[in-house]
């Protein structure tokens, strides 16, 4: 493949990083496409920063190769890589003005003065800090410092921009504003963004694709919809949003469906997730989002198109914009259904706690994970 078309791609090939005996990143494979906004999402300590630092060159992989823009960059020192980073702590140079901070990358590359001045102004305009060039970082608010850090990185027109939890130091309101700002920048710059976060909302709202990580491994790589609707592992299902999890055992099935036996004794048919390991006898977890769960009086669910289970309504909780019903199944397992409240009527009709109910979901909305 020619070099030009690969500009902006990142490829991690079986990358492992060990610190002493501890494995921070474990044989990770990741192909980032040019121009996409990809998030590394996972809990604290799962290896996100380490992965990012192997792309920026501040950590050397113990094993595996890192390719940037189609070239093997594993042994390239950080200052020669065509990537730039936005650090969590911003790491602005306190002894330089905002303009000097932003100009730094071009200055060390010895670009000529008029070019530097023009580009600094352009970039400050881009992050809406046109009038702040002569201030010092210490005289800026957190959000403004964040923008300076962004400007300082993007002025170099890197192939890939790496962002390590850039929003985590900001308060909620500012964080939401900066989310929008970042997506706008991504659209305008047409640059690859690799964004690290432990905040699922951030990842879901901003990314083209998300890599969900845990304990140094990527559990699932997919679009936000994929990740949310079709979690590949139990960890992903639990980590993203609220989910019902029912223990089950595979009892049969073919290429188009899988039959499982729940711990409550019910047999259900689910769409397979393309995982050939779901052979009879394997124990799995059935996951279904509360928003997808129907809750009706007994016999109220069309069993042609839906999976349905019988249970008893334990609790109804009014949450303002929605109502949450908790159902106990035959063996005591609980299943939660959440429905939006519309025009003042009760979304679950006349149901009251203690009533016998049917719960169910449209075939295909539940997922089996291991």
């Amino acid at each position: 493949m020619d070099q030009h078309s690969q500009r902006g791609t990142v490829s991690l090939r079986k990358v492992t990083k060990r610190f002493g005996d501890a494995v921070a990143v474990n044989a990770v494979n990741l192909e980032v496409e040019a121009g996409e906004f990809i998030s590394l999402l996972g809990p604290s300590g799962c290896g996100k920063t380490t992965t990012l630092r192997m792309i920026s060159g501040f950590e050397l992989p113990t094993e595996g190769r890192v390719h940037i823009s189609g070239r093997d960059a594993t042994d390239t020192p950080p200052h020669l890589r065509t990537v730039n980073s936005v650090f969590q702590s911003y790491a602005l140079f306190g002894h330089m003005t905002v303009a000097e901070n932003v100009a730094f990358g071009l200055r060390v590359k010895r670009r000529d003065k008029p070019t530097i001045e023009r580009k600094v102004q352009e970039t400050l305009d881009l992050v809406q800090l046109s009038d702040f060039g002569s201030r010092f970082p210490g005289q800026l608010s957190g959000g403004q410092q964040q923008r300076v850090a962004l400007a300082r990185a993007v002025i170099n027109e890197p192939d890939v921009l790496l962002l390590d939890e850039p929003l985590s130091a900001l308060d909620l309101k500012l964080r939401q504003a900066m989310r929008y700002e970042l997506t706008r920048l991504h659209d305008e710059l047409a640059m690859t963004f690799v964004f690290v976060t432990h905040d699922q909302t951030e990842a879901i709202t901003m990314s083209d694709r998300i890599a969900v990580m845990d304990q140094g491994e990527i559990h699932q790589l997919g679009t936000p919809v994929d990740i949310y609707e079709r979690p590949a592992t139990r960890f992903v299902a639990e980590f993203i949003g609220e989910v019902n999890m029912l223990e089950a055992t595979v009892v049969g099935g073919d290429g188009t469906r899988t039959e499982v036996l729940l711990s409550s004794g019910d047999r259900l048919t689910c769409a397979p997730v393309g995982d050939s390991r779901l052979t009879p006898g394997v124990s799995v977890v059935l996951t279904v989002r509360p928003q997808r769960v129907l809750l009706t009086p007994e016999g109220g669910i069309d069993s042609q198109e839906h999976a349905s289970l019988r249970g008893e309504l334990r609790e109804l909780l009014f949450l303002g914009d929605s109502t949450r019903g908790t159902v106990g199944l035959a063996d005591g397992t609980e299943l939660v259904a959440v429905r939006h409240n519309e025009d003042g009527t009760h979304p679950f009709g006349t149901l009251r706690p203690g009533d016998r109910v049917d719960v169910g979901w449209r075939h295909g909305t539940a997922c089996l994970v291991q």
Partner: protein
Amino acid sequence: MMAARAARAASGGSGTALRRSAAPLLAPGLLWISVVYVIPGALILVYSFLTPKLGGGVVWQATLDSWEEIVARGRRSDAGWGTVGAAALRGIATAAVAAVPTVAAARYLGRRISRGLGFAALLGALAAVNHLASAYNNYTAVFARSVVWSLWATVVCICLALPLAVFISSRSSPVTKNALLIAVMVSFWTSMLVRTYAIRFLLANTGPLNNLIEALGLDRVVFLNTRFAVILGLVYTALPFMILPLYAATERVERAQMEAARDLGARPPQVFADVFVPMVRPGLTVGVVMVFVLSVSQYLVPTLLGGGKTNMIANLLELQFGEAFNWPLGAAVAALFSVVTFAGLYLTVGRRDQEELL
């Protein structure tokens, strides 16, 4: 310039307001400073205008004799214009040679060429003064020698202390750090006289160093009573005063900022010059001032390692107060030198970094 800006930035631009409101708090400190420094200083100045008393002390009779004497002895020289010309030539040659690496370094670091040239000119001026100082043997020469040798000691201290400070602060275990810091300070536990004699013994013509040189099949070298011995002694005594403030400054260096510079394409030397040095600058300034002031007023080192000559200003003072019993002349020398040193420090580091030192 940069460091002062950083200080302003850190204080959010409210530095002056802060200082004004803090004035009452400074009162005890100012009182202390005046008791310890200002009053003795003033006394020295007053003495310099009095008449010497035979056998030491002063007669309270105002005269300008001492100052006239200083001017006269400053002028009197055993060398003519030839020496001045040689010194000038030497300065120009040094500047020209030094300009090659300094301009190259300025270009490499992306700084203005004029800065490289300025640095070369400074080195040239120092070389010229150095030459004059070794050729002349009058008060001017003693002044110049004191300053130049102390500058040498300061530069050597920076070169030794910087890597050491970085090394200590890069140790991950606090125990190791403390052990290393204590090792730095251990030399304070021994009397300076003993330590200086120890160096004298080491460097002596029949001392261990020369024995080693002879064992290697080389000729013995005269170390004692040379400029080398004096500067070595100055460095040895003052080094901890450079290491400690530099270490404190290095501890505060943000790793992330250095990585950010690297990430933005700066090569390691650029990271050092553009990010590391500005960040340790306050510590560096404190270290430079301490080492220079300590060295320039050294008495033991020039006496024991430099031979019985009037090598540095303290020897001159001892001569006037102790042997010639001309207290007013000694006081005048001391006053003049203090003013010159203070003014020099103020002009070079003071104006730029006063906000950090306060």
